[in-house]
């Protein structure tokens, strides 16, 4: 039923979601550092990697329109497509009003439930005070759990003082190492191949493995049997 989403000879694809909106943006700066470290660690693990950055600020109006209309325009579709093809993700948001940015959440609201299944994600947040240090773990982690993605054990949070602290670099390296090991192990692909049918899916959705034709569809289900004239009473 399922197809591998990465052939062994294909370079790994790292995709960054950046919800920072200023220029320069400390969220983007953090995302860039995480991305570079991840590329280095992936290279160290023997994986050639391509990098795509999705800046949400230029997509803000498209995101708002898509939420109201119920479907994305071309630019947003391209962003969703690049996420669908991602082997690893860095998700970075500023903290506003003690939470992830509304723009970030709105973008994620437009993502199919099955788009990020078993993809490793480094969660990252920036804030004006260290009091928001748990936003990545207490707000972003449950969100990506709902999406059945796999946030790596270490999340990255940067308050103003962290930009002068060597420990930030150490944490970034730890998260990048975790991400690289996850990708190198192939366990994400293995999970998708072994368990894909068990998740909720949308026919012809955006997920790389979405069912798009009769050849992809599992007909061995209660509903499909009912559709073909079967009975739901089990007789």
């Amino acid at each position, binding site marked *: 039923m399922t197809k591998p989403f990465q052939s062994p000879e294909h370079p790994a694809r790292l995709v960054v979601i950046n919800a920072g909106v200023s220029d320069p943006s400390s969220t983007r700066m953090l995302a860039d550092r995480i991305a570079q470290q991840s590329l280095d660690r992936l290279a160290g693990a023997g994986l050639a990697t391509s990098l795509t950055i999705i800046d949400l600020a230029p997509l803000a109006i498209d995101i708002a329109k898509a939420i109201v*209309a119920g*479907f994305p325009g071309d630019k947003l579709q391209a962003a969703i497509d690049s996420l669908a093809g991602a082997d690893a993700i860095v998700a970075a948001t500023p903290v506003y009003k003690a939470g992830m940015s509304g723009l970030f959440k709105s973008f994620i609201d437009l993502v199919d439930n099955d788009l990020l299944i078993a993809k490793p994600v480094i969660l990252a947040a920036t804030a004006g005070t260290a009091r928001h240090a748990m936003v990545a773990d207490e707000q972003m982690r449950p969100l990506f759990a709902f999406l059945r993605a796999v946030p790596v054990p270490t999340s990255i949070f940067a308050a103003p003082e962290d930009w002068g602290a060597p420990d930030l670099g150490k944490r970034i390296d730890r998260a990048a190492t975790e991400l690289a090991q996850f990708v190198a192990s192939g366990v994400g692909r293995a999970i998708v191949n072994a368990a894909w049918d068990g998740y909720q899916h949308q026919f012809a959705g955006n997920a790389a493995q979405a069912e798009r034709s009769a050849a992809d569809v599992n007909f061995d289900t209660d509903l499909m049997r009912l559709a073909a004239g079967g009975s739901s009473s089990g007789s």
Partner: protein
Amino acid sequence: MQFGIFSVSDVTRNPLTGNTPSEAQRIDAIGRIAQRADEVGLDVFAIGEHHNPPFFSSSPTTLLAHIAALTQRIILSTSVTLVTTNDPVKIAEDYAMLQHLAKGRVDLMLGRGNTVPVYPWFGQDIRNGVALALENYNLLHRLWREDVVDWQGKSRTPLQGFTAIPRPLDDVPPFVWHGSIRTPEIAEQAAYYGNGYFANNVLAPNFHFLPLVNFYRERFEHYGHGSKEQAIVGLGGHAFIAKNSQDAHERFRPFFEGNPIYGSSYSLEEYAKNTPLSVGSPQEIIDKTLSFREAFGDYQRQLWVVDAMGLPLEAALEQVELLGIEVVPVLRKEMASRRSSGAAEAPTHASLVAAKYGDAPARQPTPNPNRGDNLTGARPYQDTDPALAAKLPLVG
């Protein structure tokens, strides 16, 4: 190929005048729109089913029976009949009755409905929506084809020795379209029975429904009803037509922008470019509709919404006339010239009768006499197959 209009029966404020029609005005208007569609030679008029304001059409068969009496040749259909919250027994009876009154000018489109509270209002649960739709149609299919039905399932009370009356006209059930925008199980059911599949083709990007239509075509062939190209496909759409493109955009814009479903997101131009919404001159509507065929292949039915968003009656009637006089005659020719020889014709009552009986007379079910208990015994009709005798439930 059939061309026509479908309505969701919305009662919407006219953004130009600020006037909202009453239910009475809209119900009167829809009859006149259907009549005009018949007069200008459109093939199909379809009405939706809703159970909450701001919609008026809760009882499609009552409305369609009235329209049947006002019209000569147009086929009356639904968009959609709720197969989840209606009892399939009542659907079987209501639409068979309508079919008799309209002398066969009836088919119907079955859908699940997307208004969450309607399910609990009718004692159902939207989380079972797909299973309800599938099981209810399985029963409906039998009720229209078997004089006597014994049935047991999850969606309603079991039936023992049940006969849905009246039997379909000429003992040929109305043709059924299954409408779905995302659910392969519904397309699978349409394919299994050799019924039609309809994609509403609105409020989504161009050709968004192509994977489901192709899935239906593949499965139609799989079940031996014919080739993929012979499957029975219908598409919706939304049209606003004026003599030239600029007038169409100018006149439609306030209705588009004043509408909560359309007006708060993409611009009219974006919508018209990226979705099946057709706004423009007759030639532009023709070109856009031909692009549907280009993508979806030969299909059997094209319906457009023309009366929504608070458009006043006069404007809706004008749309019907432009469709019937300027757009559809050209489309009939253009579609026919492009059509592959294997493509099926849209089923009608006449074609279904011919397929079932050939030159032989159609069955005319005639009941056995009332035995005094308002029943006709184990075989309800004089010619009921003896093998189908009812096992009637015993009381006491």
